[in-house]
């Protein structure tokens, strides 16, 4: 007999890796029937049959799905058509429950055994996946009660899908009363239901609800305590990532309450629990730990979700394992990707080539690489990644993507790769159509094409760049033609690229330069965004996908009103173009109109209503069943006036979206597109985005286009794009106020070369030191009090007043000054003496201020000319001294904080004025709150005065990075045997 050599197969790899705890009565010896009298010969037949019978011994009720997808099809025989309507346009060759949904439900049951997280991408139909699981559990007879915890905006949809589409039965779900309206406002006089009527006490001692219950997530924490003592055989929680939300003490009330429910389920041996989310994290891996722990520790114990000190050692041990082993020490997805790239290129296989590159690129020995700061290493790796060959790039991408998707995400969740879950993407397409409004000295003119665009130099006349086709109308040899078609016919090989370069020529011909992007904020401040055209826009256009359609709209006047009119004009044109189609119009809901004025959305709706051809098409935002109304009305136009319409709606009957304004929040943008580009959409979708190239929206739209947010389901890249950006560093020259921004990595590199941090912009910067003034780190973000929790918020105009809802403090945001103070005019506005009936009610300066004139010189001049005999301390003035007397004056009505000045220290901390005003013995301090989202980050950047080219540089770098991340993460392949 040959000597045994252990096999390499993995059957032995778990030996010694775990403990097996047998329950006390696990081995029931009495169940062994009387022993046979003889040992039977172990024949070849028995040996073979022992193997055969294993298939019977191993019978697993969860191994297969009992309900074939077609059984979910709609039955129209009764008064209510239960089931899912089959529509070839939606389902194609698949059945009403799509293959990826059925497969996800199967894996959930077979592998996760009915407890875990379903986390397919947005629009893949997770609700259907969950309802399929519920149906399968019901078919096995293992559940008789259920609890659905779902966000309010998808509440009705859940009721409809489960009761009608999956046939639970009309009005079978008990809808727990709401304590909030749809906008999150508390409702008064809401009564808790009668517990005794809702619940029955069963012989096994558990209290069970008589009907399956659905409760809004918002109401879940407010339902009566007795409901937490009930047994729910299965719990479904939608948008489960909200469970991770904590208060400042790290307390997560939803998780705490849910873990109480799971503790009862454990006792009753009813383990089923489905958590659903498309965004298990928001780019912050550290935060995802809560979800991880809940799943890995099977619901945990309630105390583990209570306040920090109560948590057990196992919690901390798990956290350590999660952070160090699963996340490789990274706290964010971006950080994780960086670390994995480092690991890849510093690995045995590739370190040789990388070290050669490093030494030649930096002229330094690779021996010192290990000593570099992490950021510096990343910069070097990014450079290498840019120039390495495609094969290596792909390998690195696969390595990182595999670790991210399979090690981090799929360790706790069912998550189909985007390619399989995004069934919509296989059936229908979406086309972004970007319309850029740009400043031009003229809108038509002659342009000479260099020979690279054609065989010989050509001179064209530009007639109309903003034609509806987006191709640009020009006249060649006296004959009008589309520029794009003309170039195509000329046989240009790189048409799009060439076209864009050509547009560059066109822009020049129309008088557009980098200087055109200069923005004037007030009479004193001019903001120049250097490199906006030649640096930022040109680069993004060049890197843009061919499938993105572009249209350019030259304008000779770029004031807000002109832009509004041009956009409205374009919108009208689009609405006419899509006259029989449903159209959705979105806006930037964070932009608030001045008090008393109509919002842009309201103005657009008003304008359209006045046009007879559209008046009948416009749908009221206020209708109760908006989704149904929209679906039923052909050619309907929905001007979405509230942000609420952008989430949780099923508006797939519409295939045309117009972004009248472009939101700077990528997640919100994806949500908007997700309303129409989702399962059930029967047509290809077109998304028109109208953007002013001189405004933030132009830059942001370009950024979205670059990272493929609109064009494809960028999935996690969107989350990353919209997530934390706390790795940005802003520096400022104390002399001239010039500000420059760096990524954390680039800043680490810059610190090694102080030359780069020296400002020499103006003579004053070189006064003390001919080398220049060293730029120092500043803070650009919001502040929060450590004690009272009040925030000191930075809006687009500057820091908002702590007392009044619309006041903006002086000096705020100007180059990151450390002192901000109240505006004297604002203080006068809230002074009893200047109010109607007050002694100085007829103040001329204040009258001007009320009219919107904020220029201090004008206000001071008017004050000087005033005949009121008010004391000097009450007269209009500038600077912090002007409000000194107001801060102690009894006539001030500012509450709780009187007019004041706020001085931040070196760490950007200051005593909290609210704590001081309210006389708290232990006053808190305002500390910076780092921008957590792309939206807040980009706005902070945008609002920085004295910007030269920092904004463009940073956004360009950010776009490039996120585009790379998207490329990398797109390599999502499930490991063999995973499904």
């Amino acid at each position, binding site marked *: 007999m040959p000597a045994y050599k252990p096999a390499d197969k993995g059957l032995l790899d778990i030996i010694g890796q775990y403990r097996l705890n047998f329950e006390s009565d696990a081995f029931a010896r009495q169940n062994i029937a009387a022993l046979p009298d003889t040992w039977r010969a172990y024949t070849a037949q028995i040996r073979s049959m022992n193997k055969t019978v294993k298939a019977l011994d191993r019978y697993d009720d969860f191994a297969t799905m009992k309900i074939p997808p077609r059984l979910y099809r709609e039955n129209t025989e*009764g008064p209510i058509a239960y089931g899912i309507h089959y529509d070839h346009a939606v389902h194609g060759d698949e059945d009403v429950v799509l293959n990826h949904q059925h497969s996800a439900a199967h894996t959930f049951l077979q592998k996760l055994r009915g407890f875990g997280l379903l986390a397919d991408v947005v629009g893949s139909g997770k609700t259907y996946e969950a309802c399929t699981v519920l149906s399968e559990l019901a078919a096995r007879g293992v559940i008789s009660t259920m609890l659905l915890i779902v966000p309010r905006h998808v509440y009705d949809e859940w009721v409809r899908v489960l009761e009608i589409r999956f046939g639970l039965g009309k009005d079978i779900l008990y809808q727990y009363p709401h304590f909030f309206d749809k906008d999150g406002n508390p409702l008064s006089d809401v009564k808790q239901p009668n517990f005794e009527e809702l619940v029955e006490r069963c012989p096994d001692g558990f209290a069970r609800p008589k009907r399956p219950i659905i409760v809004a997530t918002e109401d879940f924490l407010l339902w009566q305590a007795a409901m937490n003592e009930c047994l729910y055989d299965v719990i479904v929680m939608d948008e489960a990532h909200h469970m991770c939300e904590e208060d400042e003490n790290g307390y997560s009330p939803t998780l705490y309450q849910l873990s109480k429910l799971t503790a009862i389920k454990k006792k009753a041996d009813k383990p089923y629990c489905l958590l659903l989310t498309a965004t298990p994290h928001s780019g912050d891996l550290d935060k995802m730990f809560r979800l991880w722990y809940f799943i890995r520790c099977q619901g945990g114990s309630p105390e583990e979700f209570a306040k920090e000190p109560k948590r057990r050692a196992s919690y901390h041990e798990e956290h350590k394992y999660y952070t160090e082993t699963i996340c490789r020490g990274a706290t964010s997805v971006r950080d994780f990707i960086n670390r994995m790239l480092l690991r890849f290129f510093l690995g045995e296989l590739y370190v040789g080539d990388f070290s050669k590159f490093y030494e030649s690129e930096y002229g330094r020995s690779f021996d010192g690489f290990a000593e570099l700061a992490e950021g510096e290493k990343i910069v070097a790796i990014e450079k290498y990644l840019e120039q390495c060959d495609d094969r290596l790039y792909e390998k690195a991408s696969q390595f990182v993507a595999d670790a991210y998707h399979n090690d981090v995400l799929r360790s706790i969740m069912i998550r189909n790769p985007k390619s399989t879950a995004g069934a919509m993407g296989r059936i229908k397409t979406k086309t972004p159509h970007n319309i850029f409004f740009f400043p031009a000295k003229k809108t038509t003119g002659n342009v000479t094409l260099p020979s690279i665009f054609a065989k010989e130099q050509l001179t064209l006349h530009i007639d109309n760049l903003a034609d509806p086709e987006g191709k640009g109308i020009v006249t060649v040899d006296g004959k009008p033609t589309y520029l794009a078609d003309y170039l195509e016919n000329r046989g240009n090989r790189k048409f799009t690229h060439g076209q864009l370069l050509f547009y560059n020529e066109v822009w020049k011909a129309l008088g557009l330069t980098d200087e055109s992007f200069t923005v004037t904020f007030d009479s004193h401040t001019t903001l120049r965004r250097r490199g906006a055209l030649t640096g930022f826009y040109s680069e993004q256009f060049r890197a843009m996908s061919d499938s993105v359609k572009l249209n350019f709209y030259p304008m000779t006047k770029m004031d807000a009103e002109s832009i509004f009119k041009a956009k409205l004009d374009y919108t009208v044109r689009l609405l006419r173009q899509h006259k029989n189609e449903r159209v959705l119009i979105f806006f930037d809901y964070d932009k608030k109109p001045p008090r008393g004025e109509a919002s842009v959305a309201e103005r657009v709706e008003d304008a359209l209503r006045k046009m007879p051809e559209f008046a009948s098409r416009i749908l009221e935002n206020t209708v109760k069943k908006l989704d149904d109304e929209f679906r039923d009305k052909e050619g309907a136009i929905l001007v979405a006036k509230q942000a609420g319409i952008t989430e949780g709606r099923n508006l797939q009957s519409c295939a045309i979206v117009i972004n009248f304004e472009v939101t700077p929040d990528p997640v919100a943008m994806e949500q908007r597109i997700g309303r129409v580009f989702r399962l059930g959409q029967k047509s290809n979708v077109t998304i028109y985005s109208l953007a002013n190239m001189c405004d933030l929206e132009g830059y942001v739209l370009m950024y979205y286009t670059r990272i493929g947010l609109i064009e494809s389901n960028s999935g996690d890249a969107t989350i990353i794009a919209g997530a934390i950006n706390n790795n940005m560093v802003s520096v400022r020259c104390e002399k001239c106020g010039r500000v420059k921004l760096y990524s954390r990595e680039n800043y680490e590199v810059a610190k090694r070369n102080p030359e780069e941090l020296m400002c020499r912009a103006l003579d004053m910067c070189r006064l003390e030191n001919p080398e220049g003034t060293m730029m120092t780190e500043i803070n650009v973000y919001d502040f929060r009090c450590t004690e009272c929790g009040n925030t000191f918020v930075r809006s687009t105009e500057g820091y908002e007043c702590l007392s009044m809802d619309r006041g903006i403090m002086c000096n705020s945001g100007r180059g990151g000054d450390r002192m901000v103070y109240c505006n004297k005019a604002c203080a006068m506005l809230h002074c009893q003496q200047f109010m109607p009936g007050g002694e100085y009610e007829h103040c001329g300066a204040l009258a001007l201020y009320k009219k919107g004139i904020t220029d201090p010189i004008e206000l001071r001049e008017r004050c000087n000319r005033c005949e009121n005999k008010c004391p000097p301390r009450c007269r209009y003035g500038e600077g912090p001294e002007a409000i000194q007397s107001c801060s102690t004056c009894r006539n001030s009505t500012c509450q709780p904080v009187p007019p004041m000045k706020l001085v931040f220290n070196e760490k950007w901390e200051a005593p909290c004025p609210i704590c001081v005003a309210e006389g708290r013995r232990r006053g808190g301090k305002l500390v910076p709150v780092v921008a957590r989202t792309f939206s807040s980050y980009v706005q902070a950047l945008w609002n920085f005065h004295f910007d030269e080219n920092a904004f463009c540089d940073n956004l360009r770098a950010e776009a490039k990075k996120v585009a790379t991340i998207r490329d990398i993460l797109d390599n999502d392949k499930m490991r063999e045997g995973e499904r």
Partner: protein
Amino acid sequence: MRIEINGADYKEAFSSAQELIKSGLVRGALECAVLSDGSIKHGDDVFVYVEQIQEYAASQSRMTMTSEGASWFEGFRRRARGEATELEEDGTQKWKQFITALADAYHKKYFLSAFRKTNDGDGKAQLDEYQNFAQNIMTTLFDITPVTLAPVSERDIDDEDIYGLSLCLQIGNGMGELIPVLGTVYIKRYGKDFTLMTGFEAEALEHSLELTDDDALSEEEVVDSALVSALLDAFEHYTKDEDNHLAESLYFTETVDHDAVKTCLDATAIANMNLQCRSVQILGISNIKWKPHAYDVYDGPERIFRIHSSISGGITLFCLGCDTKEPIIDNNILVYIDKNGKRRDITVRPEEAGLGIDASTLDAIRASDVIASHYIPVGSYCKQKVRGGLCTKKRCRQNLIELAINNDDEKAFFCADCPNPEIVYTDKTGAHFTRLLTYVPTEGAMVSTAETKLCTSCERPFRSDGKATMCSFCSKFNHDEAVENYKKYREILPVTLRLFSGKGEKLCLEDDEILLFRLGDNKYIFHKFSLRERGYIQNPKKTTKS
């Protein structure tokens, strides 16, 4: 009733049921048959496997979307209406019951199966091969070279007696539905003792059984029910054992079971890595007996180890120097405890230099008890000098007697059969460490020092129960004889001492060793064998207690 079974996952189960019934092995145990179209008839039910999911859907009438909703939610609807919720049993439930009954019938009939095998090949022909193996092992692990081998008579070789328990376990990680997995544990019998084989050994064994040819199979044998009962006792004990040995021995023969456990573990908190087993069922027990060729290993004239091939072709090495029944190497697997107290399994490759073990592991193994306790130089433990040096003989650690000295501060080791009385004193009660004994003259024997005291009279050790202060020599004497003795030996005392000793009684007690003079309250000892330097007899010496 026609019951359709659908789904690729059930295909294997259906085919297995067909095969099992066709084999005839469950005939008489369960009434069932495979019909000509491949369907299975059991009682009134006919089970049909349907390949295509569409066909299944079309023909399944029990589950459907009715005008009231989905049939599978009927229970919820009834409950909401306050009606009874018992639902009609569906076909898959019957299928589940059938296959459970079928598998039970098979397992009940073939619960015990035996496999017997004697050595194969020519023992003498294998001698050279084993000589090389043994030499390699002895040199690498014990620094013994050279060794010689001699074949062992067949009647002196014990069978390897192994029991394989096929188990079905319902396991889970605390949440989620339990999952059934099939595994095997192998238990080896050594006399009356049972020892779990590790998963690694189990895999090797399974591998060898796979290679077994049909000729090696045995006939039926009568069951020793007491032995099987003891085996089940041992298994039950292992299920309650807190040391987790069963998990280390559980071997999953098929990937599907291994992967199921792995998936469970992957979803388990790292802090505990605990799996729960709610039920474990023994599906069958197989007994494997194997009589191998065996060879004794000699170091010079001394027979020290026995080496033989195990059933799976590996090498098994026993120590002959101690009573340990468990092998040092079992089927090429060497189990040792590392310096951190963690159990390690190493595969030994006797045909490779250094046994195929890397140097650092080898150092750890040699330092561990599994090697360091066998056939070691006695002098490495026993620090008593023999002829000016340490003892160079070799013994197993188990054969050394360990003794604590000075309240465990010091330990002494010695061989029970040590020929040096200055080291070991042997009497009818056994071997004693001489250093810890005291000669008691009244008994003429060596007594544990701890049990002795010094006599307050003659100042010699005596065995004391704790209260007595004088030895029997001094306390229980014949008065007349003592008077006579005094007369006999008084000349030994100086004249002046006799003249000025007062009026007290004068006595002399005698034994083989001393003369004890009592002059009033004063006592003088005269050692019979003590001499002056120049050969004169020493004068009697006054005792300190006088």
